[in-house]
Protein backbone atom coordinates (compact mmCIF):
# COMPACT_ATOMS: atom_id res chain seq x y z
CA UNK A 1 0.00 0.00 0.00
CA UNK A 2 1.13 3.47 -0.69
CA UNK A 3 2.06 5.51 2.34
CA UNK A 4 -0.46 8.08 3.41
CA UNK A 5 1.58 11.12 4.33
CA UNK A 6 -1.12 13.51 5.43
CA UNK A 7 -1.26 14.44 9.07
CA UNK A 8 -4.68 12.92 9.43
CA UNK A 9 -3.47 9.74 7.87
CA UNK A 10 -0.52 9.43 10.17
CA UNK A 11 -2.57 10.22 13.23
CA UNK A 12 -4.99 7.56 12.21
CA UNK A 13 -2.15 5.09 11.89
CA UNK A 14 -0.81 5.88 15.31
CA UNK A 15 -4.15 5.62 17.06
CA UNK A 16 -4.91 2.41 15.21
CA UNK A 17 -1.60 0.91 16.20
CA UNK A 18 -1.94 1.96 19.82
CA UNK A 19 -5.39 0.44 20.07
CA UNK A 20 -4.24 -2.82 18.57
CA UNK A 21 -1.30 -2.93 20.91
CA UNK A 22 -3.61 -2.38 23.84
CA UNK A 23 -5.92 -5.15 22.68
CA UNK A 24 -3.03 -7.54 22.21
CA UNK A 25 -1.71 -6.80 25.69
CA UNK A 26 -5.11 -7.23 27.29
CA UNK A 27 -5.51 -10.56 25.53
CA UNK A 28 -2.24 -11.79 26.89
CA UNK A 29 -2.69 -10.60 30.45
CA UNK A 30 -4.72 -13.54 31.72
CA UNK A 31 -2.11 -16.00 30.47
CA UNK A 32 0.75 -14.06 31.96
CA UNK A 33 -1.09 -13.80 35.23
CA UNK A 34 -1.73 -17.52 35.36
CA UNK A 35 1.81 -18.47 34.40
CA UNK A 36 3.21 -16.07 36.96
CA UNK A 37 0.81 -17.35 39.59
CA UNK A 38 1.93 -20.88 39.05
CA UNK A 39 5.41 -19.91 40.12
CA UNK A 40 4.47 -18.32 43.43
CA UNK A 41 4.48 -19.83 46.84
CA UNK A 42 1.33 -20.58 48.79
CA UNK A 43 2.35 -17.91 51.24
CA UNK A 44 2.36 -15.23 48.62
CA UNK A 45 -0.96 -16.38 47.22
CA UNK A 46 -2.39 -16.05 50.70
CA UNK A 47 -1.19 -12.48 50.93
CA UNK A 48 -2.40 -11.96 47.37
CA UNK A 49 -0.10 -9.18 46.54
CA UNK A 50 1.17 -10.05 43.13
CA UNK A 51 -0.41 -9.24 39.82
CA UNK A 52 1.93 -10.15 37.07
CA UNK A 53 5.27 -10.84 38.60
CA UNK A 54 5.66 -12.81 41.76
CA UNK A 55 8.09 -11.43 44.24
CA UNK A 56 8.93 -14.84 45.52
CA UNK A 57 9.67 -17.38 42.82
CA UNK A 58 9.04 -20.98 43.64
CA UNK A 59 8.16 -24.18 41.90
CA UNK A 60 6.25 -25.62 44.85
CA UNK A 61 3.07 -25.89 42.86
CA UNK A 62 4.76 -27.91 40.15
CA UNK A 63 6.49 -30.14 42.65
CA UNK A 64 3.13 -30.84 44.17
CA UNK A 65 1.28 -31.74 41.02
CA UNK A 66 4.02 -33.97 39.75
CA UNK A 67 4.35 -35.78 43.05
CA UNK A 68 1.68 -38.27 42.11
CA UNK A 69 1.43 -39.80 38.70
CA UNK A 70 -2.10 -38.55 38.10
CA UNK A 71 -1.00 -35.74 35.84
CA UNK A 72 1.49 -37.88 34.01
CA UNK A 73 -1.12 -40.45 33.22
CA UNK A 74 -3.55 -37.82 32.05
CA UNK A 75 -0.96 -36.16 29.85
CA UNK A 76 0.01 -39.49 28.39
CA UNK A 77 -3.60 -40.19 27.52
CA UNK A 78 -3.96 -36.80 25.88
CA UNK A 79 -0.74 -37.13 23.93
CA UNK A 80 -1.75 -40.60 22.82
CA UNK A 81 -5.13 -39.70 21.48
CA UNK A 82 -3.79 -36.53 19.90
CA UNK A 83 -1.04 -38.27 18.00
CA UNK A 84 -3.05 -41.30 16.95
CA UNK A 85 -6.15 -39.24 16.27
CA UNK A 86 -4.37 -36.66 14.15
CA UNK A 87 -2.58 -39.26 12.05
CA UNK A 88 -5.74 -41.24 11.53
CA UNK A 89 -7.84 -38.19 10.73
CA UNK A 90 -5.30 -36.83 8.29
CA UNK A 91 -5.02 -40.15 6.55
CA UNK A 92 -8.69 -40.73 5.88
CA UNK A 93 -9.43 -37.04 5.34
CA UNK A 94 -6.70 -36.68 2.73
CA UNK A 95 -7.74 -39.81 0.92
CA UNK A 96 -11.36 -38.80 0.84
CA UNK A 97 -10.52 -35.21 -0.08
CA UNK A 98 -8.36 -36.37 -2.95
CA UNK A 99 -10.97 -38.77 -4.25
CA UNK A 100 -13.56 -36.04 -4.16
CA UNK A 101 -11.20 -33.58 -5.81
CA UNK A 102 -10.88 -35.68 -8.92
CA UNK A 103 -13.30 -34.49 -11.52
CA UNK A 104 -13.61 -37.85 -13.15
CA UNK A 105 -15.19 -39.49 -10.15
CA UNK A 106 -18.76 -40.50 -10.75
CA UNK A 107 -21.13 -39.64 -7.97
CA UNK A 108 -18.88 -36.84 -6.81
CA UNK A 109 -21.72 -34.39 -6.44
CA UNK A 110 -23.77 -36.81 -4.42
CA UNK A 111 -20.90 -37.46 -2.06
CA UNK A 112 -20.24 -33.77 -1.65
CA UNK A 113 -23.87 -33.15 -0.83
CA UNK A 114 -23.78 -35.88 1.79
CA UNK A 115 -20.79 -34.21 3.39
CA UNK A 116 -22.12 -30.67 3.28
CA UNK A 117 -25.51 -31.71 4.61
CA UNK A 118 -23.92 -32.91 7.83
CA UNK A 119 -22.77 -29.35 8.39
CA UNK A 120 -26.35 -28.14 8.36
CA UNK A 121 -28.10 -30.87 10.26
CA UNK A 122 -27.11 -33.70 12.54
CA UNK A 123 -28.59 -36.42 14.66
CA UNK A 124 -27.76 -34.78 17.94
CA UNK A 125 -26.12 -35.77 21.17
CA UNK A 126 -28.20 -38.71 22.26
CA UNK A 127 -28.44 -40.60 18.97
CA UNK A 128 -24.69 -40.24 18.48
CA UNK A 129 -24.13 -41.47 22.00
CA UNK A 130 -26.33 -44.47 21.34
CA UNK A 131 -24.43 -45.32 18.17
CA UNK A 132 -21.14 -45.23 20.03
CA UNK A 133 -22.63 -47.34 22.78
CA UNK A 134 -23.98 -49.91 20.36
CA UNK A 135 -20.54 -50.18 18.79
CA UNK A 136 -19.23 -51.15 22.19
CA UNK A 137 -16.87 -48.21 22.41
CA UNK A 138 -17.78 -47.06 25.89
CA UNK A 139 -14.69 -46.92 28.10
CA UNK A 140 -12.59 -47.36 25.00
CA UNK A 141 -10.18 -44.71 23.80
CA UNK A 142 -11.43 -45.25 20.25
CA UNK A 143 -14.59 -43.42 21.34
CA UNK A 144 -12.50 -40.28 21.58
CA UNK A 145 -11.21 -40.65 18.05
CA UNK A 146 -13.64 -42.42 15.76
CA UNK A 147 -16.75 -40.27 16.25
CA UNK A 148 -14.80 -37.19 15.24
CA UNK A 149 -12.38 -38.64 12.73
CA UNK A 150 -13.40 -36.32 9.92
CA UNK A 151 -14.34 -32.69 10.20
CA UNK A 152 -16.39 -31.69 7.18
CA UNK A 153 -14.92 -28.23 7.16
CA UNK A 154 -11.37 -29.53 7.11
CA UNK A 155 -12.30 -32.01 4.43
CA UNK A 156 -13.58 -29.27 2.17
CA UNK A 157 -10.48 -27.18 2.66
CA UNK A 158 -8.31 -30.13 1.69
CA UNK A 159 -10.46 -30.96 -1.29
CA UNK A 160 -10.35 -27.44 -2.62
CA UNK A 161 -6.62 -27.33 -2.30
CA UNK A 162 -6.15 -30.63 -4.09
CA UNK A 163 -8.40 -29.45 -6.87
CA UNK A 164 -6.04 -26.62 -7.60
CA UNK A 165 -3.15 -28.88 -8.34
CA UNK A 166 -2.49 -28.89 -12.07
CA UNK A 167 -3.91 -31.91 -13.79
CA UNK A 168 -0.85 -32.15 -15.95
CA UNK A 169 1.13 -33.42 -13.00
CA UNK A 170 -1.34 -36.20 -12.39
CA UNK A 171 -1.44 -37.09 -16.04
CA UNK A 172 2.29 -37.50 -16.33
CA UNK A 173 2.33 -39.57 -13.19
CA UNK A 174 -0.29 -41.87 -14.67
CA UNK A 175 1.72 -42.27 -17.80
CA UNK A 176 4.64 -43.24 -15.66
CA UNK A 177 2.50 -46.01 -14.26
CA UNK A 178 1.42 -44.53 -10.94
CA UNK A 179 -1.92 -45.60 -9.61
CA UNK A 180 -4.15 -43.18 -7.72
CA UNK A 181 -2.63 -43.98 -4.35
CA UNK A 182 0.78 -43.25 -5.78
CA UNK A 183 -0.37 -39.95 -7.17
CA UNK A 184 -1.80 -38.95 -3.84
CA UNK A 185 1.16 -39.89 -1.70
CA UNK A 186 4.03 -39.10 -4.03
CA UNK A 187 2.84 -36.02 -5.84
CA UNK A 188 -0.21 -34.36 -4.35
CA UNK A 189 0.68 -34.53 -0.67
CA UNK A 190 4.24 -33.24 -0.98
CA UNK A 191 2.90 -30.29 -2.91
CA UNK A 192 0.28 -29.60 -0.26
CA UNK A 193 2.45 -29.25 2.80
CA UNK A 194 1.12 -25.84 3.96
CA UNK A 195 -2.46 -27.02 3.99
CA UNK A 196 -1.52 -30.39 5.44
CA UNK A 197 0.30 -28.64 8.26
CA UNK A 198 -2.62 -26.36 8.93
CA UNK A 199 -5.30 -29.03 8.93
CA UNK A 200 -3.13 -31.32 11.01
CA UNK A 201 -2.90 -28.57 13.56
CA UNK A 202 -6.66 -28.12 13.54
CA UNK A 203 -7.22 -31.80 14.16
CA UNK A 204 -4.49 -31.98 16.77
CA UNK A 205 -5.97 -29.10 18.72
CA UNK A 206 -9.42 -30.68 18.61
CA UNK A 207 -8.07 -33.94 19.98
CA UNK A 208 -5.96 -32.25 22.62
CA UNK A 209 -8.98 -30.24 23.78
CA UNK A 210 -11.22 -33.27 24.11
CA UNK A 211 -13.52 -32.84 27.07
CA UNK A 212 -17.14 -33.57 26.27
CA UNK A 213 -16.57 -36.88 24.53
CA UNK A 214 -14.36 -37.96 27.39
CA UNK A 215 -16.96 -37.37 30.05
CA UNK A 216 -19.66 -38.94 27.93
CA UNK A 217 -17.85 -42.06 26.85
CA UNK A 218 -15.25 -42.75 29.52
CA UNK A 219 -16.53 -43.77 32.91
CA UNK A 220 -13.19 -44.85 34.27
CA UNK A 221 -11.48 -41.85 35.85
CA UNK A 222 -8.06 -43.34 35.23
CA UNK A 223 -8.66 -42.89 31.52
CA UNK A 224 -9.29 -39.17 31.68
CA UNK A 225 -7.41 -36.88 29.33
CA UNK A 226 -5.85 -33.72 30.67
CA UNK A 227 -8.79 -31.38 30.05
CA UNK A 228 -11.11 -33.45 32.21
CA UNK A 229 -8.53 -33.59 34.96
CA UNK A 230 -8.03 -29.85 34.68
CA UNK A 231 -11.71 -29.26 35.21
CA UNK A 232 -11.76 -31.56 38.20
CA UNK A 233 -8.91 -29.78 39.86
CA UNK A 234 -9.68 -26.19 39.12
CA UNK A 235 -13.43 -25.97 39.28
CA UNK A 236 -14.51 -28.97 41.22
CA UNK A 237 -11.49 -28.76 43.49
CA UNK A 238 -11.44 -32.48 43.88
CA UNK A 239 -7.81 -32.89 44.67
CA UNK A 240 -5.16 -34.59 42.65
CA UNK A 241 -5.00 -37.92 44.30
CA UNK A 242 -8.09 -39.55 42.97
CA UNK A 243 -6.80 -43.00 43.65
CA UNK A 244 -7.66 -42.50 47.28
CA UNK A 245 -11.12 -41.00 47.19
CA UNK A 246 -11.62 -41.39 50.89
CA UNK A 247 -8.47 -39.55 51.79
CA UNK A 248 -9.78 -36.34 53.29
CA UNK A 249 -6.36 -35.45 54.56
CA UNK A 250 -5.36 -34.30 51.12
CA UNK A 251 -6.03 -30.54 51.08
CA UNK A 252 -7.97 -29.03 48.19
CA UNK A 253 -5.66 -27.45 45.64
CA UNK A 254 -4.84 -23.80 46.16
CA UNK A 255 -4.59 -21.10 43.54
CA UNK A 256 -0.98 -21.69 42.64
CA UNK A 257 -1.57 -25.37 42.10
CA UNK A 258 -4.60 -24.71 39.94
CA UNK A 259 -2.61 -22.28 37.86
CA UNK A 260 0.18 -24.78 37.47
CA UNK A 261 -2.25 -27.36 36.13
CA UNK A 262 -3.62 -24.84 33.66
CA UNK A 263 -0.11 -24.14 32.44
CA UNK A 264 0.65 -27.82 32.03
CA UNK A 265 -2.58 -28.40 30.11
CA UNK A 266 -1.82 -25.52 27.78
CA UNK A 267 1.88 -26.03 27.31
CA UNK A 268 1.94 -28.40 24.32
CA UNK A 269 -0.21 -26.05 22.32
CA UNK A 270 1.96 -23.09 23.25
CA UNK A 271 5.05 -25.00 22.18
CA UNK A 272 3.74 -26.15 18.82
CA UNK A 273 1.90 -22.98 17.96
CA UNK A 274 4.74 -20.68 16.88
CA UNK A 275 6.05 -23.18 14.38
CA UNK A 276 2.79 -23.61 12.61
CA UNK A 277 1.40 -20.13 12.92
CA UNK A 278 3.00 -18.92 9.74
CA UNK A 279 1.09 -21.47 7.72
CA UNK A 280 -2.38 -20.47 8.82
CA UNK A 281 -3.26 -17.51 6.74
CA UNK A 282 -2.07 -19.28 3.64
CA UNK A 283 -3.10 -22.83 4.31
CA UNK A 284 -6.57 -22.24 5.63
CA UNK A 285 -7.50 -19.82 2.96
CA UNK A 286 -6.29 -21.68 -0.03
CA UNK A 287 -9.24 -23.85 0.76
CA UNK A 288 -11.63 -20.99 1.47
CA UNK A 289 -15.03 -21.25 3.03
CA UNK A 290 -17.26 -21.14 0.03
CA UNK A 291 -15.95 -24.36 -1.52
Amino acid sequence: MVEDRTLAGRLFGIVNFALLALIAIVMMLPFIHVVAGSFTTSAEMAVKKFVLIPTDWSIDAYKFIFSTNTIFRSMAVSVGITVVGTLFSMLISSMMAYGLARRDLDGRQVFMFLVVFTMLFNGGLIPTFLVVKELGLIDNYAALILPISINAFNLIILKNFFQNIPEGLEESAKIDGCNDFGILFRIVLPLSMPVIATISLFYAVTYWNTYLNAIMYLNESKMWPIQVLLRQIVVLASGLDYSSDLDSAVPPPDQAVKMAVIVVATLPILLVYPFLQKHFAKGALLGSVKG
Partner: protein
Amino acid sequence: MQQAIARPEPELRSESRLSRRLVRNKWLYLMILPGLLYFVIFKYLPMYGLIIAFKDYKPFAGINGSEWVGFKHFDRLFTESDFGTILTNTLVLFGLNLVFFFPIPIILSLMLNEVRLTFFKRIFQTIIYLPHFMSWVIIVSIGYVMLTMDGGIINEFIASLGFEKINFLLSPEWFRPTYIIQVIWREAGWGTIIYLAAIAAIDPQLYEAARMDGAGRLRQIWHITLPAIRSVIIVLLILKIGDVLELGFEHVYLLLNSMNRDVAEIIDTYVYTAGLRQGQFSYSTAVGFFKSLVGLVMVVIANRLAKKMGEEGVY
Protein backbone atom coordinates in the same frame (compact mmCIF):
# COMPACT_ATOMS: atom_id res chain seq x y z
CA MET B 1 -14.45 -47.96 -35.33
CA GLN B 2 -11.54 -47.04 -33.13
CA GLN B 3 -8.06 -47.26 -34.58
CA ALA B 4 -5.53 -49.40 -32.84
CA ILE B 5 -2.53 -47.36 -31.76
CA ALA B 6 0.46 -48.07 -29.58
CA ARG B 7 -0.88 -46.14 -26.58
CA PRO B 8 -4.23 -46.94 -25.02
CA GLU B 9 -6.70 -44.55 -26.56
CA PRO B 10 -7.71 -41.63 -24.33
CA GLU B 11 -11.17 -42.32 -23.02
CA LEU B 12 -13.49 -39.39 -23.41
CA ARG B 13 -15.79 -39.26 -20.47
CA SER B 14 -18.98 -39.03 -22.35
CA GLU B 15 -18.07 -41.97 -24.49
CA SER B 16 -16.81 -44.57 -22.10
CA ARG B 17 -19.28 -46.66 -20.25
CA LEU B 18 -20.05 -46.14 -16.58
CA SER B 19 -18.90 -49.59 -15.67
CA ARG B 20 -15.55 -48.96 -17.32
CA ARG B 21 -15.10 -45.73 -15.43
CA LEU B 22 -15.96 -47.35 -12.13
CA VAL B 23 -13.34 -49.99 -12.68
CA ARG B 24 -10.76 -47.52 -13.82
CA ASN B 25 -11.34 -45.38 -10.78
CA LYS B 26 -11.48 -48.28 -8.35
CA TRP B 27 -8.60 -46.93 -6.29
CA LEU B 28 -10.33 -43.60 -5.93
CA TYR B 29 -13.44 -45.27 -4.63
CA LEU B 30 -11.32 -47.25 -2.26
CA MET B 31 -9.80 -44.01 -1.04
CA ILE B 32 -13.08 -42.38 -0.23
CA LEU B 33 -14.49 -45.51 1.33
CA PRO B 34 -13.19 -45.07 4.89
CA GLY B 35 -14.37 -41.46 4.90
CA LEU B 36 -17.77 -42.43 3.58
CA LEU B 37 -18.05 -45.13 6.21
CA TYR B 38 -17.33 -42.51 8.83
CA PHE B 39 -20.11 -40.26 7.60
CA VAL B 40 -22.55 -43.11 7.32
CA ILE B 41 -21.83 -44.54 10.75
CA PHE B 42 -21.28 -41.45 12.83
CA LYS B 43 -23.37 -38.88 11.02
CA TYR B 44 -26.19 -40.58 9.16
CA LEU B 45 -26.84 -43.46 11.48
CA PRO B 46 -27.51 -41.05 14.35
CA MET B 47 -29.89 -39.21 12.04
CA TYR B 48 -31.78 -42.46 11.68
CA GLY B 49 -31.59 -42.69 15.45
CA LEU B 50 -33.60 -39.48 15.65
CA ILE B 51 -36.56 -41.72 15.19
CA ILE B 52 -36.50 -42.49 18.89
CA ALA B 53 -37.89 -38.99 19.39
CA PHE B 54 -41.15 -40.54 18.27
CA LYS B 55 -40.81 -43.64 20.37
CA ASP B 56 -40.53 -44.56 23.97
CA TYR B 57 -36.97 -45.78 23.79
CA LYS B 58 -35.96 -48.49 26.17
CA PRO B 59 -32.32 -49.58 26.04
CA PHE B 60 -33.02 -53.26 26.26
CA ALA B 61 -35.60 -53.13 23.48
CA GLY B 62 -33.32 -51.27 21.12
CA ILE B 63 -34.52 -48.76 18.59
CA ASN B 64 -36.80 -51.04 16.64
CA GLY B 65 -38.25 -52.75 19.63
CA SER B 66 -39.34 -49.60 21.39
CA GLU B 67 -42.93 -48.53 21.30
CA TRP B 68 -44.16 -45.80 18.96
CA VAL B 69 -45.66 -42.78 20.72
CA GLY B 70 -45.88 -40.20 17.97
CA PHE B 71 -45.60 -36.61 19.11
CA LYS B 72 -45.93 -37.27 22.81
CA HIS B 73 -42.44 -36.00 23.60
CA PHE B 74 -42.86 -32.89 21.50
CA ASP B 75 -46.12 -32.12 23.27
CA ARG B 76 -44.34 -32.44 26.54
CA LEU B 77 -41.56 -30.21 25.31
CA PHE B 78 -43.83 -27.32 24.50
CA THR B 79 -45.94 -27.58 27.58
CA GLU B 80 -43.07 -28.11 29.93
CA SER B 81 -42.89 -25.06 32.13
CA ASP B 82 -39.14 -24.76 31.88
CA PHE B 83 -39.02 -24.73 28.13
CA GLY B 84 -39.87 -21.07 27.79
CA THR B 85 -36.99 -20.13 30.08
CA ILE B 86 -34.56 -22.42 28.32
CA LEU B 87 -35.51 -21.14 24.91
CA THR B 88 -35.19 -17.57 26.13
CA ASN B 89 -31.77 -18.26 27.56
CA THR B 90 -30.65 -19.79 24.31
CA LEU B 91 -31.95 -16.91 22.24
CA VAL B 92 -30.46 -14.32 24.57
CA LEU B 93 -27.03 -15.86 24.27
CA PHE B 94 -27.48 -15.96 20.52
CA GLY B 95 -28.42 -12.30 20.52
CA LEU B 96 -25.39 -11.42 22.61
CA ASN B 97 -23.24 -13.32 20.16
CA LEU B 98 -24.72 -11.53 17.21
CA VAL B 99 -24.57 -8.03 18.65
CA PHE B 100 -21.39 -8.09 20.68
CA PHE B 101 -19.27 -10.75 19.16
CA PHE B 102 -19.99 -10.77 15.44
CA PRO B 103 -18.79 -7.25 14.57
CA ILE B 104 -15.53 -7.55 16.45
CA PRO B 105 -13.53 -9.71 14.03
CA ILE B 106 -14.64 -7.40 11.25
CA ILE B 107 -13.43 -4.33 13.07
CA LEU B 108 -10.22 -6.03 14.13
CA SER B 109 -9.46 -7.13 10.60
CA LEU B 110 -9.97 -3.59 9.35
CA MET B 111 -7.63 -2.32 12.03
CA LEU B 112 -5.03 -4.96 11.29
CA ASN B 113 -5.19 -4.15 7.63
CA GLU B 114 -4.23 -0.59 8.38
CA VAL B 115 -1.01 -1.55 10.07
CA ARG B 116 1.76 -0.67 7.65
CA LEU B 117 4.61 -2.64 9.07
CA THR B 118 4.19 -6.33 8.35
CA PHE B 119 6.34 -7.23 11.32
CA PHE B 120 3.93 -5.75 13.83
CA LYS B 121 0.94 -7.01 11.94
CA ARG B 122 2.32 -10.53 12.27
CA ILE B 123 2.96 -10.12 15.96
CA PHE B 124 -0.55 -8.87 16.62
CA GLN B 125 -1.99 -11.72 14.63
CA THR B 126 0.06 -14.30 16.47
CA ILE B 127 -1.18 -12.97 19.79
CA ILE B 128 -4.84 -12.73 18.93
CA TYR B 129 -5.03 -16.14 17.27
CA LEU B 130 -3.70 -17.92 20.30
CA PRO B 131 -6.78 -18.06 22.59
CA HIS B 132 -8.71 -19.90 19.90
CA PHE B 133 -6.53 -22.94 20.44
CA MET B 134 -7.18 -23.10 24.14
CA SER B 135 -9.94 -25.51 25.07
CA TRP B 136 -13.01 -24.12 26.76
CA VAL B 137 -11.87 -25.91 29.87
CA ILE B 138 -8.72 -23.80 29.88
CA ILE B 139 -10.56 -20.57 29.15
CA VAL B 140 -13.12 -21.20 31.87
CA SER B 141 -10.42 -22.33 34.28
CA ILE B 142 -8.43 -19.16 33.72
CA GLY B 143 -11.62 -17.21 34.21
CA TYR B 144 -12.24 -19.18 37.36
CA VAL B 145 -8.93 -18.46 39.03
CA MET B 146 -9.20 -14.79 38.13
CA LEU B 147 -12.81 -14.28 39.15
CA THR B 148 -13.05 -16.41 42.23
CA MET B 149 -13.89 -14.67 45.47
CA ASP B 150 -11.26 -16.77 47.13
CA GLY B 151 -8.11 -15.02 46.00
CA GLY B 152 -8.94 -14.22 42.39
CA ILE B 153 -7.16 -11.15 41.17
CA ILE B 154 -10.25 -9.30 39.98
CA ASN B 155 -11.94 -9.54 43.33
CA GLU B 156 -8.78 -8.65 45.17
CA PHE B 157 -8.58 -5.52 43.09
CA ILE B 158 -12.20 -4.66 43.80
CA ALA B 159 -11.68 -5.22 47.49
CA SER B 160 -8.58 -3.04 47.52
CA LEU B 161 -10.66 -0.19 46.16
CA GLY B 162 -12.95 -0.55 49.12
CA PHE B 163 -15.88 -2.27 47.45
CA GLU B 164 -17.45 -5.57 48.29
CA LYS B 165 -16.30 -8.62 46.42
CA ILE B 166 -18.50 -9.81 43.61
CA ASN B 167 -19.49 -13.41 43.17
CA PHE B 168 -18.92 -13.60 39.45
CA LEU B 169 -18.95 -17.34 39.20
CA LEU B 170 -22.18 -18.14 40.93
CA SER B 171 -24.47 -15.16 40.58
CA PRO B 172 -26.97 -15.23 37.72
CA GLU B 173 -26.40 -11.58 36.79
CA TRP B 174 -22.80 -12.19 35.88
CA PHE B 175 -23.27 -15.31 33.83
CA ARG B 176 -24.06 -13.58 30.56
CA PRO B 177 -21.30 -10.95 30.71
CA THR B 178 -18.78 -13.63 31.67
CA TYR B 179 -19.97 -15.80 28.81
CA ILE B 180 -19.74 -13.18 26.12
CA ILE B 181 -16.42 -11.78 27.27
CA GLN B 182 -14.92 -15.25 27.18
CA VAL B 183 -16.35 -15.83 23.71
CA ILE B 184 -14.85 -12.59 22.47
CA TRP B 185 -11.52 -13.33 24.06
CA ARG B 186 -11.30 -16.73 22.50
CA GLU B 187 -12.73 -16.24 19.04
CA ALA B 188 -12.39 -12.61 18.02
CA GLY B 189 -8.83 -12.98 16.82
CA TRP B 190 -9.41 -16.18 14.93
CA GLY B 191 -12.43 -14.70 13.21
CA THR B 192 -10.25 -12.12 11.52
CA ILE B 193 -8.55 -14.69 9.34
CA ILE B 194 -11.28 -15.01 6.83
CA TYR B 195 -11.88 -11.25 6.60
CA LEU B 196 -8.19 -10.57 6.16
CA ALA B 197 -8.13 -13.04 3.32
CA ALA B 198 -10.92 -11.22 1.55
CA ILE B 199 -9.26 -7.87 2.17
CA ALA B 200 -6.00 -9.13 0.75
CA ALA B 201 -7.74 -9.68 -2.55
CA ILE B 202 -8.61 -6.02 -2.97
CA ASP B 203 -6.92 -4.27 -5.82
CA PRO B 204 -4.45 -1.71 -4.42
CA GLN B 205 -5.22 0.60 -7.28
CA LEU B 206 -8.61 1.28 -5.83
CA TYR B 207 -6.94 2.79 -2.79
CA GLU B 208 -4.63 4.83 -4.98
CA ALA B 209 -7.50 6.22 -6.95
CA ALA B 210 -9.38 7.05 -3.78
CA ARG B 211 -6.37 8.80 -2.35
CA MET B 212 -6.01 10.90 -5.45
CA ASP B 213 -9.60 11.92 -5.05
CA GLY B 214 -8.71 13.12 -1.58
CA ALA B 215 -10.22 10.37 0.49
CA GLY B 216 -8.80 10.00 3.98
CA ARG B 217 -8.13 6.57 5.48
CA LEU B 218 -11.48 6.28 7.15
CA ARG B 219 -13.28 7.02 3.94
CA GLN B 220 -11.14 4.53 2.12
CA ILE B 221 -12.13 1.86 4.60
CA TRP B 222 -15.77 2.73 4.34
CA HIS B 223 -15.93 2.86 0.57
CA ILE B 224 -13.41 0.26 -0.50
CA THR B 225 -12.50 -2.21 2.19
CA LEU B 226 -15.92 -2.77 3.69
CA PRO B 227 -17.82 -3.33 0.45
CA ALA B 228 -15.18 -5.81 -0.60
CA ILE B 229 -15.80 -8.00 2.39
CA ARG B 230 -19.54 -7.64 2.25
CA SER B 231 -20.01 -11.07 0.69
CA VAL B 232 -17.92 -12.72 3.36
CA ILE B 233 -19.83 -10.96 6.10
CA ILE B 234 -23.12 -12.12 4.68
CA VAL B 235 -22.04 -15.72 4.23
CA LEU B 236 -20.80 -15.85 7.79
CA LEU B 237 -23.93 -14.17 9.04
CA ILE B 238 -26.00 -16.86 7.34
CA LEU B 239 -23.95 -19.60 8.91
CA LYS B 240 -24.26 -17.90 12.25
CA ILE B 241 -28.03 -17.67 11.97
CA GLY B 242 -28.17 -21.33 11.12
CA ASP B 243 -26.46 -21.84 14.44
CA VAL B 244 -29.12 -19.90 16.27
CA LEU B 245 -29.90 -22.57 18.77
CA GLU B 246 -26.53 -24.17 18.53
CA LEU B 247 -24.16 -22.30 20.67
CA GLY B 248 -21.01 -23.59 22.29
CA PHE B 249 -22.51 -26.29 24.48
CA GLU B 250 -19.21 -27.12 26.11
CA HIS B 251 -18.60 -23.52 27.12
CA VAL B 252 -22.00 -23.05 28.74
CA TYR B 253 -21.86 -26.48 30.35
CA LEU B 254 -18.62 -25.55 32.06
CA LEU B 255 -20.07 -22.30 33.38
CA LEU B 256 -23.32 -23.87 34.50
CA ASN B 257 -23.91 -24.49 38.17
CA SER B 258 -26.86 -24.86 40.49
CA MET B 259 -26.97 -21.15 41.25
CA ASN B 260 -27.12 -19.72 37.74
CA ARG B 261 -29.18 -22.46 36.16
CA ASP B 262 -32.11 -20.10 35.56
CA VAL B 263 -30.16 -18.04 33.09
CA ALA B 264 -27.51 -20.48 32.03
CA GLU B 265 -29.53 -23.52 31.03
CA ILE B 266 -29.73 -23.64 27.26
CA ILE B 267 -31.29 -26.24 24.99
CA ASP B 268 -28.11 -28.25 24.56
CA THR B 269 -27.34 -28.49 28.26
CA TYR B 270 -30.94 -29.44 28.87
CA VAL B 271 -30.66 -32.22 26.31
CA TYR B 272 -27.48 -33.43 27.94
CA THR B 273 -28.88 -33.39 31.45
CA ALA B 274 -32.22 -34.93 30.59
CA GLY B 275 -30.70 -37.48 28.27
CA LEU B 276 -27.45 -38.68 29.69
CA ARG B 277 -27.85 -37.83 33.31
CA GLN B 278 -31.49 -38.68 33.79
CA GLY B 279 -31.77 -41.32 31.12
CA GLN B 280 -34.71 -39.73 29.35
CA PHE B 281 -33.38 -40.73 25.97
CA SER B 282 -36.44 -40.26 23.85
CA TYR B 283 -37.50 -36.98 25.35
CA SER B 284 -34.09 -35.36 25.11
CA THR B 285 -33.70 -36.62 21.56
CA ALA B 286 -36.98 -34.92 20.73
CA VAL B 287 -35.65 -31.68 22.17
CA GLY B 288 -32.43 -31.98 20.23
CA PHE B 289 -34.31 -32.88 17.07
CA PHE B 290 -36.44 -29.80 17.40
CA LYS B 291 -33.33 -27.70 17.81
CA SER B 292 -31.54 -29.16 14.78
CA LEU B 293 -34.62 -28.76 12.66
CA VAL B 294 -35.00 -25.12 13.56
CA GLY B 295 -31.36 -24.57 12.70
CA LEU B 296 -31.78 -26.19 9.31
CA VAL B 297 -34.86 -24.15 8.50
CA MET B 298 -33.12 -20.97 9.55
CA VAL B 299 -30.12 -21.64 7.35
CA VAL B 300 -32.28 -22.40 4.36
CA ILE B 301 -34.29 -19.22 4.85
CA ALA B 302 -31.24 -17.08 5.45
CA ASN B 303 -29.54 -18.56 2.41
CA ARG B 304 -32.50 -17.83 0.22
CA LEU B 305 -32.63 -14.28 1.53
CA ALA B 306 -28.99 -13.78 0.73
CA LYS B 307 -29.44 -15.02 -2.79
CA LYS B 308 -32.35 -12.67 -3.26
CA MET B 309 -30.09 -9.82 -2.27
CA GLY B 310 -27.67 -10.83 -4.93
CA GLU B 311 -25.06 -12.46 -2.78
CA GLU B 312 -23.76 -15.95 -3.16
CA GLY B 313 -25.25 -18.27 -0.64
CA VAL B 314 -23.57 -20.91 1.40
CA TYR B 315 -24.58 -23.67 -0.99
